[in-house]
């Protein structure tokens, strides 16, 4: 039971009370099967928002530019908020969780809603498929091309930014390539560009087709060749597996397990789905040392709360407000290295907000929170927070049970690990009756530091 909870906490966004009675009776193998049942079906691409032409933007007045910026921002917010809602309600939570992982790995700021969706479609299509295809997709992704200045990477004047991050952050890791490898790889990616409509284009006149020497090999390499040479290096499998292990299993790495996983990943030709399935089917994944030891990221926390408490955010900006206040705005990572995660999510301000979040959603917390003013960003205020909670499925779950049983059941759904004083909390709440008892208990359980963990 604890194991199934762990599986859904890590491979998805936690549990909804309605699914718990069935899930907890399942075998672990059946639960893994169900999680993977939709893998292999092509993820249906999300619909692209319209193009906002960048042509002639320079001709606009400052007021017109601001109006265009605002419209664009609203579209980007819609893509962002819809993704959070999808994480919370998806029939295929593994796909969303894996996509979120890759978004952090290929950290990239998107400038328009359309470009954000384009990138999201690449991540979704290959999230559990071939890492090679994923890399090729990202190397041709207009958002990434712009973020890492590859549209300025031309034969006469190479820009090394993409080549550098491809090696340092996306594939093989620091210490396994030379400065010369970066220079040569940058030449191979010259001409991989994007047009004004935000589409990928290969500009052959800007491409350098000369011979390059990269990682000991020589040839007239293009970007695809560079990626293939990187994938030939076992270190690339090791680097990716370590990232995956730290995200899905434990920040403290078990070197033997990672070595074994790396070998398997390499031998499977970098098949992500197979690797993930192997991890979730391994006994060590469910070892006590791996349970409830990860701090949820702000988006994971939000998606989980929306899922379990059937929450509605009619306004996109409410979700954006919370992402900003808690410190994780999708499509806007702090830099190309992504969100550092773990304890960096926590400071006095974010922790108090996290612990007061349930109270805020139940409209009982007495907190006010002003976001920092940011240039080029519309101001968002807490008093515009528009949210509703629906506990019907919790009431349903608790029907016909004693209060102490109810409390245990609620803790079971909401917490991976309970504090030692859990029993006392239940007793204190017993002065309330019926739904009030359940409501207060849910709110308290969500206000525990333990609730921040998965």
């Amino acid at each position, binding site marked *: 039971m604890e194991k199934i909870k762990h599986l859904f906490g890590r491979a998805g966004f936690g549990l909804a009370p309605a699914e718990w009675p069935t899930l907890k009776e399942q075998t672990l193998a059946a639960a893994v099967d169900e999680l993977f049942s939709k893998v292999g079906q092509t993820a249906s691409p999300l619909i692209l928002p319209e193009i906002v032409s960048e042509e002639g933007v320079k001709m606009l*007045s*400052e007021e017109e530019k601001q109006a265009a910026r605002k419209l664009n921002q609203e579209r980007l917010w819609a893509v962002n908020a819809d993704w959070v809602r999808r994480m919370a309600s998806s029939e295929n939570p593994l796909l969303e969780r894996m996509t979120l992982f890759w978004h952090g790995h290929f950290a990239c700021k998107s400038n328009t809603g359309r470009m954000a969706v384009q990138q999201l479609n690449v991540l979704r299509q290959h999230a559990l498929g071939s890492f090679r295809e994923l890399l090729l997709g990202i190397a041709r992704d207009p958002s990434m091309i712009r973020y890492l200045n590859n549209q300025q990477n031309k034969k006469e004047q190479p820009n090394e930014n993409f080549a550098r991050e491809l090696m340092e952050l996306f594939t093989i890791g620091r210490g396994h390539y030379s400065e010369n490898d970066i220079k040569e790889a940058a030449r191979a990616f010259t001409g991989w560009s994007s047009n004004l409509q935000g589409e990928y284009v290969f500009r052959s006149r800007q491409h350098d087709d000369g011979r390059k020497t990269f990682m000991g090999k020589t040839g007239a390499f293009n970007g695809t060749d560079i990626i293939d040479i990187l994938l030939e290096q076992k270190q690339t499998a090791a680097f990716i597996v370590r990232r995956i292990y730290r995200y899905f299993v434990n920040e403290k790495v078990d070197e033997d397990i990672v070595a074994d996983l790396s070998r398997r990943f390499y031998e499977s030709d970098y098949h992500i789905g197979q690797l993930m399935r192997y991890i979730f089917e391994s006994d060590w994944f469910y070892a006590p040392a791996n349970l*409830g*030891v*990860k*701090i949820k990221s702000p988006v994971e926390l939000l998606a989980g709360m929306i899922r379990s408490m059937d929450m509605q955010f009619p306004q996109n900006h409410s979700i954006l407000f919370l992402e900003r*206040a808690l410190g994780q705005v999708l499509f806007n990572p*702090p*830099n*190309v*290295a992504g969100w*550092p995660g*773990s*304890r*960096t999510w*926590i*400071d*006095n*301000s*974010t*922790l*108090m907000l996290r*612990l*007061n979040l349930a*109270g805020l959603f*139940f*409209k*009982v*917390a*007495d*907190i*006010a*929170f*002003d*976001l*920092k*003013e*940011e*240039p*080029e960003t519309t101001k968002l205020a807490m008093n515009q927070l528009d949210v509703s909670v629906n506990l019907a499925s919790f009431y349903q779950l608790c029907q016909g049970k004693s209060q102490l049983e109810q409390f245990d059941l609620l803790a079971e759904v909401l917490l991976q*690990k309970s*504090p*030692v*004083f859990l029993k*006392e*909390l239940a007793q*204190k*709440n017993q*002065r*309330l009756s019926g739904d*009030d008892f359940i409501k*207060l208990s849910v*709110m*308290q359980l969500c*206000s*525990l*530091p*333990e609730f*921040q*963990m998965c």
Partner: protein
Amino acid sequence: MNRRNFLKNSALASSSLLVPTFLHALPGGKGSRTEKILVVIQLSGGNDGLNTLIPFRNDLYYQNRPRLAVPAMEVLDLNGELGLNPAMASIRHLYDQGEMCLINSVGYPNPDRSHFRSMDIWQSGSGSSEYWSSGWLGRYLDSDCLACEKPYHLLEFSDQLSMAVKGEQRNGFAMSDPKKMKRSVDNPFLTSLSQRQHEADHDDHVAYLYKVLIDTQYSAQYLLDQSKVYASSVSYPNTPFGRDLKQMAELITADSDIKVYYVSLGGFDTHANQRGRQDRLLQQYAEGLSAFVQDLKKNNLFQDTLILTFSEFGRRVQQNASGGTDHGTANNVFLMGGSLKKAGSYNTAPDLMTLDNGDLLYQVDFRQVYATILEKWLNADASLILRGEFAPMSWV
């Protein structure tokens, strides 16, 4: 269930069970200040330095900014070459009294013109091709400075903590108002949690969350108490920035155990109609500071205080078509304090002739400014904190 009932019902009798020592609040007793204080003021959005500290004898300034230049007649002449924007008249006397040092053309190699990225670089103290997730003042806390284990030792006036004050091990403390802060921690349920028994494991993230919770509760109480010690009678501008500075002066005067104060003033991204907007902001800045300095001087504290003002970048030399300026590079940095070793203009005015694609070239690396503050004012190991060697300067 209404709010009152919720609070009543969730209030738990404080059962004082065994609490592992590492979860106890910080050592009690009234902490008090040791030695020097640093105040950092961040002007967000990219303040136009050329219209702040104006090279009013330079024809190129007027040629590049026919609509935007401040007429030489109006400029507050400081040294015959540079002068302050007239909106800053209220702090001109600090210059005359040798309590202001101006450093021109501060920047870094390969400057980035994005607000977010350049602010990250200034706050973390990294180079433009490095990505760090901690700030220079946060790493000062990490370096085990005296009393650094207290989170409020580095206090930011905001509900959100800036990267500048986040370390690898320790963080500064965010608070916009002590009463508001206290309300957010006075949730009886959360209060009860800190008094309960926990499984003690130092490495555990859960234990860390409890520790931050308890530190926050303790710090909120400390800051509220300290905010009541001294009520300033100086009149500050009635703006958020003015209120922040007033609270700051009150905490300093109360001899609080706070070493570094961090505060921001935003709105400097003046792409259009810059003159009026920037002047209003500079006036807020100057009038706030003028009151603050007056307050500190009254209590004989200005000689223990150093105030650094910076922005993520300056703006382009040439005005744009909308009566504003676009994102630029190097900028001036202001230092104020009662015990500067070198006051006045530290280096020559920016060179408006030799530009990089229309932008100023930097002369002083911003990390030299940080190194000077860390080594000479905070008595810390600058090369450790900045992860490299940057030659300190001689203004303190």
